[in-house]
C-alpha cells in the first residue's frame, strides 16, 4: 500500500521553526516506522536525520513521537498505527532540545541519570561491615522490579507531564535507576538514607504527579512511576517525613484511618501545617470554597463502619506473621 508519512523537520541552522514534510512510500506488511525512515533517507531525502542502531528494541536509540505518543520506531508497526490513528505523524521526542529533525539532545537526560549516583556507594567501613563477606548477589535476596530492564530510550521523560512544566525534574528514567540501587542489598542502609535524602529534595521524588504516562509508554515495562512510589515509601520508612510530599501521604492515610473518607478541609492542615507563607496562599482559596459550599465539615461524623476501616490499619501496623513485613509509618 502507498502511504503518506508526515515527518517533523527542523534544522536549527537554517529553519526558524519546525515544519512538517510529507513523504509518500509504498510499504508492505510488517513494515516498521524505522524501516520507513531508513528507506526515506536512502531513496528520497538523504538530509533526514534520525538516530538508530540495533533495529530490534535493544539499544533504545530510536525513541520518537509517533502519532502523539512516545515509541521505539523499530518496533512500531506501520499497519497498526494506521489502524489506530488513520495517519502516521512522526516527530522528535517532546520537551527535549532538537538537534536536527528527529534527533534530540539527550544530555539533560544523561545528566539526570548521573545525578542519582547510579552506582553502589562505598560503605563506610568495608572491613567492619558485616555484609562485606556476602557481597555477591544471591538469587532471591534482591528484587529489582524490572527497573534494570531500562534501555535509556528517553520515552518516559518525553512523556512525563511534570518534566513538561518543570525541566529540572529528575524524571522517571533517572528515578527508576535510583530505585534499582535502593533495592541492591550490597549498599549500606546509611548510604541508602543519604541517597533518599538527596532524592526527597525539590525536583526529586515528590514532584511526580502519578499521571502514569511513563508506565504507559515504556517499551520495556519498567513502570518508572511504580519505582518512584517505592522510593517515596522508602523515604518515609527511613524517617524522611518532613517534606510536603511525605506529609501528604502520612496525613492522607491518617485522615482515612480516623474518618474513613478524605476530608478536604483537613488536608491543608496536614500538608501545609505551620508554613505561614503557604498557609496564606491556601486561606483565600479556602474562603472562596467555603462561600461556594465546597468545604466539608472538619468535625463531621466518621464513616459508618469506621471500626472496620481502623482495623485494616491496625492489621497492617501489626503485620501478620505470614506477610511479615508491613510497617505503616507513624508520624508524630
Amino acid at each position, binding site marked *: 500500500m502507498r502511504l503518506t508519512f508526515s515527518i517533523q523537520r527542523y534544522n536549527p541552522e537554517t529553519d526558524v521553526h519546525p515544519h512538517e514534510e510529507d513523504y509518500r512510500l509504498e510499504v508492505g506488511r510488517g513494515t516498521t516506522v524505522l524501516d520507513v525512515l531508513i528507506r526515506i533517507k536512502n531513496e528520497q531525502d538523504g538530509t533526514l536525520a534520525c538516530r538508530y542502531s540495533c533495529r530490534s528494541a535493544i539499544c533504545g536509540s530510536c525513541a520518537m513521537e509517533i502519532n*502523539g*505518543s512516545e515509541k521505539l520506531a523499530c518496533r512500531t508497526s506501520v499497519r497498526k498505527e494506521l489502524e*489506530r*490513528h488513520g495517519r502516521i505523524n512522526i516527530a522528535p521526542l517532546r520537551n527535549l532540545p532538537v538537534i536536527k529533525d528527529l534527533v534530540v539532545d539527550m544530555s539533560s537526560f544523561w545528566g539526570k541519570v548521573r545525578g542519582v549516583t547510579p552506582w553502589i556507594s562505598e560503605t563506610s567501613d568495608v572491613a567492619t561491615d558485616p555484609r562485606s563477606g556476602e557481597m555477591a548477589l544471591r538469587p532471591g535476596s534482591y528484587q529489582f522490579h524490572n527497573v534494570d530492564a531500562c534501555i535509556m530510550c528517553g520515552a518516559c521523560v518525553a512523556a512525563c*507531564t*511534570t518534566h*513538561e*512544566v*518543570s525541566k529540572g525534574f529528575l524524571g522517571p528514567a533517572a528515578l527508576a535507576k535510583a530505585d534499582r540501587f535502593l533495592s541492591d542489598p550490597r549498599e549500606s542502609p546509611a548510604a541508602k538514607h543519604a541517597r533518599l535524602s538527596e532524592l526527597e529534595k525539590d525536583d526529586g521524588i*515528590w*514532584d511526580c*504527579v*502519578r*499521571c*502514569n*504516562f511513563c*508506565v*504507559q509508554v515504556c517499551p520495556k515495562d519498567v513502570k518508572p512511576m511504580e519505582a518512584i*512510589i517505592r522510593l*517515596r*515509601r522508602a523515604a*518515609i520508612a527511613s524517617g524522611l517525613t518532613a*517534606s*510536603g*510530599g511525605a506529609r*501528604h*501521604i502520612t496525613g*492522607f*492515610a491518617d485522615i*482515612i484511618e480516623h474518618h*474513613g*473518607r*478524605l*476530608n*478536604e*478541609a483537613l488536608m491543608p492542615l496536614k*500538608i*501545609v501545617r505551620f508554613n505561614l507563607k503557604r498557609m496564606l*496562599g491556601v486561606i483565600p482559596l479556602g474562603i*472562596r*470554597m467555603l462561600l*461556594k*459550599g*465546597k*468545604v*466539608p465539615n472538619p468535625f463531621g461524623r466518621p*464513616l*459508618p*463502619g469506621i*471500626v472496620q*476501616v481502623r482495623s*485494616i*490499619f491496625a*492489621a*497492617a501496623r501489626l503485620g*501478620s506473621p*505470614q*506477610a511479615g513485613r*508491613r510497617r*505503616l509509618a507513624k508520624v508524630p
Partner: protein
Amino acid sequence: MPLKYALYPGCAAKGATPELYQSTMAIIGRLGIEVVELAAASCCGAGVVTEADPDVALALNARTFAQAEQLGLDVMTICGTCQGVMGAANKRLKEDPSLLERINRMLAGDGIAYRGTVTVKHLLWIVVREVGLQRLGDQVRVSMQDFRIAPFYGCYILRPSWDLGFDDPENPTSLEKVIRAVGGEPVAYPGRTKCCGFPVILEKEAIAVAMAGNNMKEAKDEGADFMVTPCPLCHMSLDIYQDRAGRAVNARLNLPILHLPQLLGLAMGIPPKDLGVSHHLVPVDSILRVIEKRGGSKHAQQLPVSDQQGAEG
C-alpha cells in the same frame, strides 16, 4: 430491565464537589440506571494510601467490593481517580488468589471476605456501553449544538490502559461520543489526556497550576466554550485553581468546567440548580444563558420529545 449498580460516590462527591453527587443523582433515572449507594464504603486510597502501605489500600477496596458483592451488584464509580485505583486493585485481587487470601485475612476480624466477583465501571463507560448513546440522545431536550466542548479525561481513567481496558489512551473517544450525543462539538487538543496536576497541588502548586493552565489554554486556543471532565479531582484543579492556573500561563481563561453528569443534565433540560452549578468557582453563566434561551424556544421544539415514556422503558 433497569441497569442496577452499587454506587461508590468517593470522597470528593461527598466533600468538596457536592455538585457531582447531586448531578449524578439527578440524571441516572432518565438513563434507566438504578443505584444502591455504598454508604459505608471508605476512600479508595486515591493512589496515596498505597504509598503509605499497599496492602491497606487493597484491603480498603476489598472491603468496598465485598459490600457490593453482598448486594449482588457491580460497582459504579463517578470519579476517574476512583475508577483507576479501584479497577487496578480489583484486577490484582482477582488475578492473584494468594494476594486475595492475604488481604482477606486483614478483613477477617470483622467477618468480611471478598470473593472476587465484582466489576468496577465508571459512569462514563456505563453511559457509552450499557445505556448506549442512542438512549442518551433520546433524552436530550436542550441540544448542546453550537457549543465547542473540550473533553478532559484526566489520567486515571486512561492509564495504564491494561488496568482499565476501555478507551485507547492514545486516542480516547468515549467523552467525544457523549459530547456528540448531546449535540455538542468536541474540541481536539493534546492536553485532553494529560494531567490536571491535582495530586501535588497542595505541596507543589507551581507544577500543578502550570499543568492545569497549559491544558485549559490549549482548549481555549482551540475555541472551547467550556470543558467537561469525568473526574472530580480534575474538576477541583481546573475550577478551584483556575485563576492561579491562568496566571501561571499568562492567560485569562474564564473557562467553565462541567462534571460529566452536569453536561448530561443540562442537555436533558434538568434545571441547573438541581445540578449544583452554584458550587463552581468559575461561573457557568455563559452556558446557562444560551441554554435558557433554548429551553422554551424553537430549539427545544426541534428536538425529539416523542419518547418521553422511553425513559422508563
